[in-house]
């Protein structure tokens, strides 16, 4: 099993994703430079966080033009598991692989903190082993994580079961106080219609070991591994 960790100019959570995959979940992980145009031989793709191209113009707007994004599109069309984390999520939105867009946090400030997420669906490769309703403690670290989609789109993705995570309080209630950035419907993560492409603002790769304050992020990567094993071609 081989997982690609994409590296764009300005990616900065690439090493953390690599560490979580290689040294915690113990799968083969490889960095893939953004100028590559093929993901041949990979079983999963992680688009890590960071400030690709300095977040200039809009977050993720310039990274979507990199050659590797064509390969990601083909990989996703083929049903392969893709997860975009933080800036990776923003890139997937800009590339049109996921619906909606990101705007600046309601507080107008960068937020680095632990939040609680409620798992809304187990239909994705990254949540298939995480029962619906499971609460996860995962950190966020972003300036533009305020998820926006128009009412119609929100209705559609909710109806399709494309909302994967919502921000909630420790008891699992979705409240406006527990929403760190103003995201519509407290959405923290979504998936594509088929479910194989997931984007989320919180950072599972930062909490795969208990000494980091939580090991809940590990569940997502282990879920992906189990999905890949089951769907081995």
């Amino acid at each position: 099993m081989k997982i690609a960790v994409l590296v764009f100019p300005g990616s900065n959570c690439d090493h953390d994703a690599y560490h979580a995959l290689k040294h915690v979940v113990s799968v083969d992980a490889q960095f893939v430079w953004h100028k590559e145009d093929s993901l041949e031989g990979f079983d999963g793709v992680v688009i890590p966080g960071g400030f690709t191209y300095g977040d200039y113009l809009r977050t993720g707007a310039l990274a979507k033009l990199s050659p590797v994004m064509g390969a990601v599109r083909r990989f996703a069309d083929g049903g392969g598991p893709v997860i975009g984390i933080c800036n990776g999520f923003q890139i997937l939105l800009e590339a049109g692989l996921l619906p909606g867009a990101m705007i600046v946090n309601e507080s107008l400030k960068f937020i680095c903190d632990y939040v609680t997420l409620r798992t809304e669906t187990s239909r994705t490769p990254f949540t298939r082993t995480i029962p619906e309703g499971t609460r996860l403690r995962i950190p966020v670290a972003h300036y533009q994580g305020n998820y926006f989609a128009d009412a119609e789109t929100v209705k559609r993705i909710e109806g399709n079961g494309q909302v994967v995570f919502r921000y909630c309080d420790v008891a699992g209630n979705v409240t406006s106080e527990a929403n760190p950035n103003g995201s519509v419907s407290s959405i923290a993560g979504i998936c594509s219609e088929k479910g194989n492409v997931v984007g989320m603002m919180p950072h599972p790769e930062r909490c795969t070991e208990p000494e980091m304050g939580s090991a809940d992020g590990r569940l997502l990567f282990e879920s992906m591994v189990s999905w890949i094993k089951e769907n081995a071609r």
Partner: protein
Amino acid sequence: MKARIYVTLRKGVLDPQGKAIQRSLSHLGMEGVDEVRVGKFMEVTLAEMARPEAEKLLEEACRRLLANTVIEDFSFEIEG
């Protein structure tokens, strides 16, 4: 030839920056500013070409990169 491109947030998209600026203006005692929407302004220099051609080019640039039409509208004007 030169062109000016304006990218603004679409109606209905919350603009936290605009809201904060509006509040600050009213704190400064400048009443009468009801709403502020923050957008981007870009100045581009184009090679000489026919006007319709330039319009087509700018339209495509805005759609494909300069604006995200999920949240943003755009307009442009060509000088001369």
